[in-house]
């Protein structure tokens, strides 16, 4: 079961270590994870490894999540990778904007493990039995 599930890989992008840590701990059992802390590394990693899904923090220094998504969309290789934005709890503006420019979904901080798993599995088209 594990191997089957691990055929999917997820790139997690967040400049905050504890957020990364948490998302990794939520997802590592089921997916192959790549974790990076800035937009430039995210683009580099996305092009190199072509993950099945990207969890992308909106607010990051240097290059924010919107810019990263824009760059991803410019390349044929990466334009179809679904992106889930990571937003703050009171940031409905980012959520709206994100969805407008093509994000697949968003997850809110602080993370609810089940909600994260659910939206990830939804995006990957997997049904996990334990979730209704």
């Amino acid at each position, binding site marked *: 079961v594990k191997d089957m599930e691990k055929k999917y890989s997820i790139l997690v992008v967040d400049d905050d*270590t504890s957020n*990364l840590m948490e998302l990794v701990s939520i997802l590592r059992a089921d997916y*192959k*994870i790549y*974790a990076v802390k800035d937009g430039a590394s995210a683009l580099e990693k996305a092009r190199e490894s072509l993950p099945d899904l990207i969890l992308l923090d909106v607010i990051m220094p240097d290059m924010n999540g919107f810019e990263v998504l824009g760059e991803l969309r410019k390349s044929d290789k990466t334009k179809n990778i679904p992106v889930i934005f990571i937003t703050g709890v009171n940031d409905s503006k980012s959520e709206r904007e994100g969805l407008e420019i093509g994000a697949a979904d968003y997850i809110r901080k602080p993370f609810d493990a089940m909600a994260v798993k659910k939206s990830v599995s939804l995006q990957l088209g997997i049904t996990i039995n*334990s979730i209704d």
Partner: protein
Amino acid sequence: MQLTQKKIIIVDDNEANLSVGRNLLKPYYEVYPAPSAAKLFNILEKLVPDLILLDVNMPEMNGYETIRRLKADKRFEQIPVVFLTAKNDEESEMEGFDLGAADYVTKPFSGPLLLRRISNQLLIEQQKRDLLASQAALQDYADNLEIKVREKTAAKTIFLANMSHELRTPMNSIVGFSELALDDDVSLKTRNYLSKILENSEWLLHIINDILEITNIESGKIDLNRVAFDLNEIVNVCRKMFMPKATENGLMLNFCIYSSIDKGLMGDPVRLRQALVNLLSNAIKFTNTGFVEFLMEIKDISNNTATVYFEISDSGVGMTPEQIGIIFDPFTQVEAGTTRSHGGTGLGLTITKNIIEMMGGSITVESTPGVGSKFSFKLTFDLIGEDEGKPKKRTMADITRKPRYAGEILICEDNEMNQHVAKETLAKVGFSTVIAGNGKIGYELVKDRMQSGEKLFDLIFMDIHMPVMDGIEATVKINELNSGIPIVAMTANIMPDDVKLYLASGMKSCIGKPFTFQELVLCLNEYFEPVSWQDENEDESNNMESDLRQKLINRFVNKNSGALNEIKDAIRDGDIKLAYRIAHNLKSSAGQLQKTCLQIAAQEVETSLKDGVNKTEPWQIGALEQELQTVIDELTPLVSEASANEISEYSYDSTAVFELFDKLEVLLGDSDPECLSLVDDLRFIKGSDELIRQIEDYDFKPAMETLEKIMEEMGLR
């Protein structure tokens, strides 16, 4: 004058009297003549008069018999009866009064006198009624007042309960994370800060609990448990709890058990222990030199009860009779001066006294200023009946050893901080955990496992307040599945009424947030047998994998046995930097093994060797030597031969290091967070601190650069 005329029945067998009376009264009252007692009762069936004029001498039923019957009937007993008696028949008059007559008039009666007597009686009746009405009004007022007071008290209790929840919830994070952080590899300075945070949070929590407890006592909300328990176990727990503190304060702590009891008792062991702990901790707190003595004696034992005498005495500061008079009042402590030096809420003794009284005892105090104090009480317990089972051996946590369990626990909890604390703390004692963010998810996890035939959880910790589905509903629903999994409430609401609700909804027990490690173990022991034990002295951090710990011990003994001589040699040779590095490493290694004394001694030396200048004092080197020897002596028997070689090889085995680095390089290159699992192994490699820090910070790119550098330095590139 009167809007409604008063009604009077006049009873007389003499037709003439009847008619005189009737004519006399008619202008003022509504008059009903009755020629016999029988007729009177006929009329009474139809109306209730304001007064009865009653002739004494009548055939069939005389006046006395009639009044007896009137007074015996609830409907008529209040009606004033005025007797009509023959002249100078004092005996009849007295008998009439005895039977409840209101007054009498002698026949032949004078009109004005009869009218006056009647109006007097009616006035008295009116006043009686007015009085009753105002009494009722007063009572209403008092009742209202009482209801209001009760409402206020209830509001206060609810407020305190809520506050305690509000206070305990953040405390859960503070205590929990401090404990967890202390188990991490943190610097000595940080460890010191963390210990202080933990110590103070625990103290704050203790105060919150005391205040909550006194609120419960005042509102009569504390119920005593009745379970089988072992008295000796309670004494042992107290001994273990206070011995270190007493020794630290230079006090003799004696436990004199004059006669022990091999039978189990029925009662509330938790409350009894609370009382004893309060008294012992007070005794130690207020005794600067000398002794504290705990005495226990079985005074009386019969087939089904045992009376036990407890005495806690000390050679402490003592109290004057005036002070003794107030020590049991809440929020008081003798002398403002001592309050400051001894701390505390002053609630401990109030609580203790209440507990003892609830158990049917009463506490006695004897004290002399400057000589000492003695607190004593006697309690009678039922002995365990045959059908009440054996005392649970594990009702008390063994506080010197940490257990390890095996099993899987479901944590239903919405607060992330609390999830984290519960998960990590349970992991420390060997449990794997699954988190559910609300009751519904928890319920569904259980249901799914039951349906798919997967292994069920061994226990469920259930928060109460959760979104979507709260803990109470989830418990009911899970129990409907008949999974047999015990559910334990894990909540900051632990007022007795709350706890009753949890138990009523089907939870097995309750653990309050924040919980200390001890409380958690106590709770877990109700459901699990520990699979192994770890001595606290030997190992304070349970999150360290045992093989890692074994590796650390082996490494420590191998590497550091000669460390002191190396430091001395380096100082002698003038290589202060080398000496500094050795002391620094010794400090870190001691820290990894939680050998705090050695850690501190090494740090002292390290600090004195800073910046290439030797400022060490001979006593510092002496202290380090002593501490190091102690630790080496302690650890040497624990070194496992096989791995001793392996580990000493390992630190120099370039192949193993190469393999490790190789793996790490691939993972780092891939930004794969699985590289974090290699950090433990990395700790064996000198100079990898920076690398470890970067990996732990998810700074994989810089970590990659650091790794390259290290590999170059080690000649692996």
